[in-house]
């Protein structure tokens, strides 16, 4: 009956598995830590900028190796089956069943491995492996442009710092929107803030990564995300200060100095990793423009209107004056103030 058949089948399958284990044993050794998806990043050379660093590529390569092994095993099993067929006919059914069983086991194991690989958050674990000291050091470094642009600069492929900076920017943006009484018609305040910040971080990173690919720059996606994320530190400082102290000239100073420093750092690192004048120009020009313009946009889109105008004028005439008030520097505010008062008095 079926009970009698399964026992020798299982034994043969076990024997078969150990037979082909030699082929797969090498693969098992390649995976560090057994079934875990954590790969030791310390062994990788960070300055090479090669795509070997990319986790996705590594997994793809491992999967390809698996498929190769499976194809070999299949071919081996097919040959084995053919050989046996020429011999004892009675055993062919048994061997066929055994091979099918083996294939099922292999398929199931691969599927569960693939699932545990991609549904596992361990994939992201190497990118969060930082110490607080390192994060602080990198935050300060992000404001210091490097001098050596002929030697590829090291970029840490870390995602904790950039992620926290994006969330901090969201919080600061919320603060700015609330204090300026920004009214969002379609959507919510929180949604707009999160969408803006994450959209900038992910979108501009992808775009610059694409440009870097076109310009043959040595940088991976994670490194680009990390670089741009740390570049947002300057934005955070600027917005935090200028959302609370509303002097336009102060903002322009911060925009140039703080924004400029963080942009220069990102640009210098990118230049050190690119060859060729045109490519360097394209890449760095685009990044500098986008980064500085984003800071400008964040300030003017959500900035609180300068107080003086609001206090003197009340009523339905306000909105047009609000528009004007945002763009003029502090010096002429006083002039406008007194003029508006005079007009209000005459009305």
């Amino acid at each position, binding site marked *: 009956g079926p009970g009698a058949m399964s026992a020798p089948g299982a034994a043969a399958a076990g024997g078969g598995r150990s037979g082909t284990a030699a082929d797969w044993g090498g693969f098992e050794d390649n995976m560090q830590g057994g079934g875990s998806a954590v790969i030791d990043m310390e062994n990788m050379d960070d300055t090479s900028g090669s795509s070997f660093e990319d986790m996705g590529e590594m997994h793809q390569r491992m999967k390809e190796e698996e498929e190769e092994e499976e194809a070999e095993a299949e071919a081996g099993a097919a040959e084995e089956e053919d050989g046996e067929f020429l011999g004892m006919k009675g055993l062919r059914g048994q061997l066929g069943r055994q091979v099918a069983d083996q294939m099922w086991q292999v398929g199931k194991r691969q599927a569960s491995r693939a699932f545990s690989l991609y549904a596992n958050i361990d994939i*992201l674990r190497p990118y969060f492996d930082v110490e*607080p000291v390192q994060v602080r050091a990198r935050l300060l470094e992000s404001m210091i442009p490097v001098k050596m642009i002929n030697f590829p600069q090291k970029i840490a492929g870390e995602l904790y710092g950039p*992620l926290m900076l994006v969330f901090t920017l969201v919080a600061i943006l919320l603060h700015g929107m609330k204090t300026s009484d920004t009214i969002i018609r379609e959507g919510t305040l929180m949604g707009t803030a999160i969408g803006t910040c994450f959209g900038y971080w992910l979108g501009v990173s992808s775009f610059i990564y694409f440009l870097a690919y076109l310009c043959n720059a040595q940088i991976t996606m994670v490194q680009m995300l990390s670089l741009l994320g740390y570049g947002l530190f300057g934005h955070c400082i600027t917005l935090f200060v200028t959302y609370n102290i509303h002097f336009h000239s102060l903002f322009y100073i911060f925009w140039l100095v703080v924004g400029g420093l963080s942009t220069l750092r990102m640009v210098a690192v990118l230049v050190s990793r690119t060859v060729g004048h045109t490519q360097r120009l394209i890449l760095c020009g685009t990044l500098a423009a986008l980064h500085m313009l984003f800071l400008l946009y964040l300030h003017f889109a959500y900035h609180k209107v300068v107080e003086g105008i609001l206090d003197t004028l009340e009523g339905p005439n306000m909105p047009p004056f609000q528009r004007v008030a945002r763009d003029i520097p502090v010096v002429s505010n006083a002039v406008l103030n007194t003029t508006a008062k005079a007009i209000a008095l005459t009305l």
Partner: protein
Amino acid sequence: FPGLADVSISEDIPVEGEITVPVGSRSPDEDYSTLDEPVKDTIMRDLKAVGKKFIHVMYPKKSSTLLRDWDLWGPLVLCVSLALMLQGGSADSKDDGGPQFAEVFVIIWFGAVVITLNSKLLGGTISFFQSLCVLGYCILPLTMAMLVCRLVLLAGSGTVSFIIRLIIVVAMFGWSTLASTAFLADSQPPNRKALVVYPIFLFYFVISWMILTFTPQ
């Protein structure tokens, strides 16, 4: 049943032991015996568990009750009540309280999920739902702050009331952050506590900010 003849326990292996399970809050044995009790008993038991956790949040000692028997009833109640109290604070009459309720709800749950993922990625030993439970329960001080703020705003909305509200919200924000840190930081490697505390700080800061800037219309 000819097939069942094969399935039999060998007689040389004696089957012995006890079928009862050790007393715990989630054992199937308990479910069997609690199926026939009146609904009031079930509700009261759950309410008592939730109430006990509230007390643990208000006086954060290093106990593992919150962690061991996690439940999400308390966080749900707190989240809904906070979202309801934050209604009606929009400046424009066109966008009604609808988006704001969903906004608060999403911020709290999405923020808690992000903090949990972050602490797990940094090498934490706490499980997903335990962390959600702790973060949700530690919103209690901020909910109380919201209640007090609403009462203060009923009295008036001048500078004095703003200062009172500021002090209360800052105090409750500190309490929330300390309470959740007391529970969560233990599960981290010791040199990375700051990395876990910062997102929690940011999370409660955003909620406190929403409470502080709430102005009823």
